[in-house]
């Protein structure tokens, strides 16, 4: 075998191994990304399955709506910033019943279209009170709907008369 053939075979083998390693490296990196995503998704799905809330009681005082929720799941609830609070009700605006559907944002201090809670964490099998400030007083004896959705997804819906 001539020198040129030896060099040619050696180069071909070296280049083949290099390219194989590049493909293998990319494949392993891709699988790592997917595996990490699957792990996070699995944790999220478990949290969703383990979260269960229930609206135990609703009490109205002027513009303030006091919503008592119980944590019937096994996850602790504390990411109130990521909760969704939605209220549909008929407001008393100049003695005219006016439908208002709106989302309320979490805040440390209460204000119109905001909600707060004194609880830092709502542990499993315990309760917490959410205080929602409505922009107007409800029109007496009208239907209302309150939706509380946790950061994990599971939600509680209350329908009744305010």
């Amino acid at each position: 075998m001539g020198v040129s053939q030896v060099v040619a075979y050696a180069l071909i083998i070296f280049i083949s191994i290099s390219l194989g390693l590049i493909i293998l490296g990319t494949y392993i990196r891709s699988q790592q990304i997917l595996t990490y995503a699957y792990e996070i998704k699995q944790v999220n799905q478990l949290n969703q399955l383990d979260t269960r809330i229930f609206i135990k009681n609703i009490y109205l005082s002027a513009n303030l709506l006091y919503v008592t929720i119980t944590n019937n799941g096994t996850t602790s609830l504390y990411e109130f910033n990521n909760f969704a609070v939605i209220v549909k009700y008929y407001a008393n605006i100049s003695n005219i019943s006016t439908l208002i559907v709106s989302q309320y944002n979490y805040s440390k201090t209460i204000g119109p279209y905001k909600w707060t809670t004194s609880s830092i964490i709502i542990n499993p099998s315990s309760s917490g009170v959410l205080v929602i400030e409505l922009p107007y007083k409800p029109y007496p004896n009208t239907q209302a709907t309150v939706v509380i959705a946790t950061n994990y997804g599971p939600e509680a819906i209350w329908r009744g008369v305010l």
Partner: protein
Amino acid sequence: MASEVVSEAIMLIVSITLIGVLAGVVFSVVSSISTSMASYATLQSQKLLTDLQIDYATNISPTTVVVYLQNIGEVTVFNLQNSVLYFGPQGNMQQIGYNTGTPPYWTISTNVLNPGSVAKITIYLSSPLTSTQYYTIEFVTSNGYSVSYTFGVS
């Protein structure tokens, strides 16, 4: 003897040149495959970590529906206005265009939805809803994630 050395040298140069050209072509193809694999993995992981939920939907007038869409996933969802929205009675849904100005159309309060955030979608209809009917909303994001919600008219 001298002629053998010369021919061997020529063969060596030709071999190295051809292998270099071949290596360049193959490396280009391998590089393209690697980029595609990495992009696919990234897109798939983004899709896996996307999780949306319609918290609530109701009509606020006979021709207007509001929908609250919450991001309960781990990644920010971009370009919500490029999503596809279907709305209609169960079994008879139709695609609604985004912000066409002529009913039916839909608008959204934000184009970017961070984890934990809520977006408000408003659907403007061309004909009034039927009070005894159940209606379904299906929202499909640009990366293929789909979420639906059924409600009764109030």
